[in-house]
């Protein structure tokens, strides 16, 4: 069966390998440049004791490369659409299930070979892209403490492998249920995007209970170290009550990079808003207000990567199980 799977899909495999190779060359070349640029910037700022401002003054990547790397977020979805969706649906559409299922092999073996190789190929491909992106982003992660941030978290580390497995399994399952390629592709895109957004925006912040930290507006805020993930920044009043919280929405103002929601600040201070964070902060501090953030510390990064990958791998496994039941039970 492996022979047939390879013969059917080898052209796709060649194209995928060529695209990956081109992407790798591009990232290796620009990534080396960035790394050496970052190293020399570190050396010179250390000499002048100005490394504290490095994040604000140094631009490592070009907009085009940053965009390209950010766009790798769609890789899992594309794999689901091009490799997952048609895998079974096209066989039903062209009737070739009736050819394959009348050879001397069981449908179970047929599905195992097809889905197995597709999932493996997707994991390898998405894993390779993610590994390149992770390596390429190394200097940027160090400079901007960005790899836990939504958007970066999604294209680095191991989660892209989980996403790819899920997307391909989703494509296979939907294609098996609908038996038609085009609707299967549309539904795969829709369901995948929806689940990714829901899990990324609503669920991820609660994998582990966020930590909280308060800070005074008078001093430069002593914020968590490293690439922590800021979940929310709010304002606490003199009596200790939370007066504003990003969950309530509304405008926010940035204190040392932490956006603090300012929905219910005293009217006296609100007029100082336009004079800058310092005056505004002094006004709030004088009245006993202080800042409160909830965040996920940097050392939870791999735990979160593991949890999110696990969720998507589990979903993929469930979808493959559904597919197997349908293939074994339904008529050709």
């Amino acid at each position, binding site marked *: 069966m492996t022979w047939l799977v390879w013969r059917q899909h080898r052209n796709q495999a060649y194209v995928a390998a060529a695209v990956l190779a081109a992407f790798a060359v591009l990232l290796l070349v620009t990534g080396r440049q960035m790394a050496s640029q970052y190293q020399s910037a570190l050396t010179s700022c250390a000499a002048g004791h100005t490394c504290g401002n490095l994040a604000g003054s140094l631009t490592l990547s070009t907009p085009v490369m940053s965009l390209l790397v950010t766009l790798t977020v769609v890789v899992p979805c594309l794999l689901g659409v091009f490799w997952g969706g048609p895998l079974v649906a096209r066989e039903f559409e062209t*009737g070739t299930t*009736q*050819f394959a299922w*009348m*050879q001397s092999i069981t449908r179970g073996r047929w599905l195992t070979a097809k889905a197995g190789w597709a999932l493996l190929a997707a994991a390898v491909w998405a894993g390779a892209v993610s590994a390149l992106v992770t390596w390429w982003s190394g200097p940027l992660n160090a400079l901007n403490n960005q790899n836990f941030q939504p958007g970066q978290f999604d294209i680095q580390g191991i989660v892209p492998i989980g996403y790819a497995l899920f997307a391909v399994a989703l494509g296979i399952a939907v294609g098996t249920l609908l038996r038609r390629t085009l609707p299967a592709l549309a539904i795969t895109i829709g369901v995948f995007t929806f689940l990714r957004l829901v899990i990324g925006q609503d669920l991820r912040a609660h994998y582990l209970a966020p930590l909280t930290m308060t800070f005074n507006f008078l001093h430069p805020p002593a914020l968590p170290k490293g690439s922590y993930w800021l979940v929310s920044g709010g304002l606490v009043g003199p009596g200790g009550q939370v007066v504003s919280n990003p969950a309530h929405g509304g405008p926010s103002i940035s204190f040392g990079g932490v956006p603090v929601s300012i929905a219910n600040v005293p009217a006296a201070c609100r007029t100082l808003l336009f004079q800058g964070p310092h005056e505004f902060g002094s006004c709030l501090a004088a009245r006993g207000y202080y800042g409160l953030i909830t965040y996920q510390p940097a050392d939870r990064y791999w735990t979160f990567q593991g949890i999110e990958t696990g969720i998507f791998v589990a979903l993929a496994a469930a979808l493959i199980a559904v597919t197997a039941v349908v293939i074994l039970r339904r008529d*050709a």
Partner: protein
Amino acid sequence: MDPLDTAPPAIETRGLAKRYRKVTALTDCTITVPEGRISALIGPNGAGKTTLLRLLSGLARPSGGEVRVLGGMPRQEPAFLAEIGFVAQEIPLYRRLSAGDHIAAGTHLNPRWDAASVRQRLKSLDVPLGQAVGTLSGGQRAQVALSLTLAKRPRLLLLDEPVAALDPLARRQFLATLADAVAAGGLTVVLSSHLVADLERVCDHLILLAASRVQLCGDIDTVLAEHRVLVGPRKDTTAIERTHRLVQATHTARQSTLLIRGRGPIADPAWESADVGLEELVLGYLGQGAPPAIAHLTTVGEDS
């Protein structure tokens, strides 16, 4: 007794039924096909021919009744699948793969696989082995599909309208390939078609389906011997219906033509009795009026 008749039948069904939600595709289907027969599965579009073949192959599951193929239930098991060859009506093959690729795939997917014979057969028919099958003609594709199926060395071959889309020459070649394979021995064939004339040349057994039910099933010689056409002056047929089954009666102003089943003698000398041909018999069962039945039977390439 013919030794073939003592062997267990290749196909035996009892009360077999298939329903798709509210549509009944096949109902109360009880047939027996002895081993070694080439059975013609005949019926108009939508009679249930495809459904029956799919149930026999195991591609579809019955909603009721029993089916035994080569002594067992059709099942997803390599040992069973190796014995069955099935060519679906639309002749599904991987369009971008060549015949040679299909032959190589078969080597990996079947325990018995006679690659050399397929290659030889396709070469003798001038079917290019290296060309994507999607670019071959309908006749060549049908030959590829049949040859691939024969390469499994199946004991039962199920062919769904294999010649429907072929031109007369390709049809003749296809049936010749089939006849050669059967002559080699150990093979039972069920072949569905609209085209009675083609089947008459190669088949020795008949399954007649109409409106999801089996109308006739048996060896063609036996079935034909059980039927007669009576021609006589137009008159009441109750006397005949008492001793024979009246299959079809057509009347002109003066004359009646009756297709009857039953071997008993006809007492009334007014009736002239004649043997019936296969096509006449089939039309008699399928059409209350012959012309629409002919239209059905010669329609080519439609779903059934």
